[in-house]
């Protein structure tokens, strides 16, 4: 599921565009883009650690921001990076709920080729859009 790093949006940090035919694909593309900022290849990760999270947000844009922020939190608090994602979106009241089951591995500097640490997801230029049945996100992450 595709993503590409973007030039011209940020001088000191990392910008990427992530796409997918469904919100699920676009969320996974975004998560992989962020993981690959921190780790040379997502295939270095095993899948023995499992984590389930539930997030609620008023719209898809805020939900993606919260999802990526949660991944950053889990990276620092539990040293987890993820390789596999099973995501389910449902309507919840006026907003959306995301149920995510994720599999990955604890960071091990002896085993993993680590790159740069991600601090946060910026709101600057942050965008999620659906056009002609395809989803696209533009994200800048603070490193």
């Amino acid at each position, binding site marked *: 599921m595709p993503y590409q790093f973007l030039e011209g949006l*940020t*001088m000191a*940090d990392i910008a990427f565009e992530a796409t997918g035919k469904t919100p699920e694909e676009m969320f996974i593309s975004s998560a992989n883009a962020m993981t690959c900022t921190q780790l040379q290849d997502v295939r270095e990760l095993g899948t023995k650690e499992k984590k389930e999270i539930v997030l609620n947000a008023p719209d898809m844009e805020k939900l993606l921001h919260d999802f990526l922020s949660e991944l950053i939190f889990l990276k620092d608090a539990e*040293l987890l990076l993820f390789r596999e994602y099973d995501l389910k979106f449902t309507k919840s009241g006026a907003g959306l709920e995301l149920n995510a089951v994720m599999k990955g591995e604890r960071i091990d500097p002896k085993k993993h080729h680590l790159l740069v640490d991600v601090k946060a997801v*910026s709101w600057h230029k942050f965008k999620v859009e659906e056009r002609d049945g395809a989803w696209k996100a533009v994200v800048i992450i603070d490193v």
Partner: protein
Amino acid sequence: MDFNRELKKPSFRKINDYVWEIGTDFKAGMRVPARIFASESLINAMDGMVYDQVTNVATLPGIVKYAYCMPDGHSGYGFPIGGVAAMDIEDGGVISPGGIGFDINCGMRLLRTDLTLKDVQPHLKRIVNKLFESVPSGVGSKGFVKLDAQGFRKVIDEGAPWCVEHGYGWADDLEATELRGRDDGADGKAVSDKAVERGKGQIGTLGSGNHYLEIQHVRPENIFDEALARKWGIFPDQIVVMFHCGSRGFGHQVATDYLNQFLSVMESKYKIKILDRELACAPFTSPEGQSYFKAMKCAMNMSFANRQTIVHRVREVFSEVFGQDAEKLGMRQVYDVSHNRASIEKHRVDGGVKELIVHRKGATAAYGPGREELTARFRDDGQPVIIGGSMETGSYLLAGVASGAETWFTTAHGSGRTMSRTRAKQLYRGDTLQKEMEGRGIYVKTGSFAGLAEEAGAAYKNIDDVIEATHQAGISKKVVKLVPIGNVKG
């Protein structure tokens, strides 16, 4: 690379050779003009988003006099990096996490030694390798101070004095730290459990990106103010240690939490409209504004504690390598400065004195002689200001000056990037760069060659030009330039 796409280039009014003004007619909603401190060549090298962002800052409620940008300015989000703004508290002035940054109290610390280049050179690799082991860096690193949530909450309340009490540093270090290493008024109740969970294992860690720990040399020809250098313990041919880091995941989570909170109330509750969501803000005196300010102070204290703990580790390494106590090696702290923070300060405005909430994002306080913020040790001479350059070129120790009142006593914080990380990685290879630097007498140890490539010297402005601009503009004065011989790259 197109940082200027869709951006209108302002016409600058030249105030003098180092100050350029953008008038309020540049953009709808500007409450004050913007002023950029830079030489002509530096301002021309700035990316176009700097002009856009500094003029966005000029639209914030309560801003006083000007929205400033320092000579090392480059685009960030919300505020530019190098952005400075003071808001009038009595006039509905706002506080904005975007004016402080995700890495609250990211800052610099400088330690002196009695050692010379000749003393250190034979042991350089061993020192750098040991520092790399003792001060964890990079993704997922954990510090040696083991604390539960309750213990960590004590640290964020007390800051660097907690470390000194627990044996990680000397009481004298606090006299040479901004705010004596503790930002009073921190309140852990304003901080989420999530922020605590993220940060509690990270005290004593460097982080990554542009964070580093360096062994530096004082070349005799690089001392510009001999009397002041001597007074601050700096002498020709000396070896010093400098490092750059912040409040780690804890500060990042505090900023994330409050940006979201401010975005949810800013327009609905306070009728504030902004031009970039990273400028999310709330009136300083509002419950949300006060809550963020207290949480920000917790992150200030985490960062002071982090750097204090790292100082302890640095002393341990030198002590082991040279077989002497750190005291005997003269490893006193010169100073510790933050370059991402907000503080309440009294400044002269239009003939009177006003209480302002001063935001500095990628900008360093440089209080002039006599200012109440300075401890007795520095009150006569002005504040020591530590400005880190790229790992290839050098860093500076400066002093605050009286004429710095123009920028609320604020100066630059670094070189400032001129090349994106993505571009730097396309142009440079970390392993090649490491070998080249070793050939030039700089030994680098890193956990990530890609990260090293991103920090190549050519990705930054010339530090000498930036410092000269701050000196000539009268917002700080040069004391000494410090050149790297060893580097732990975070």
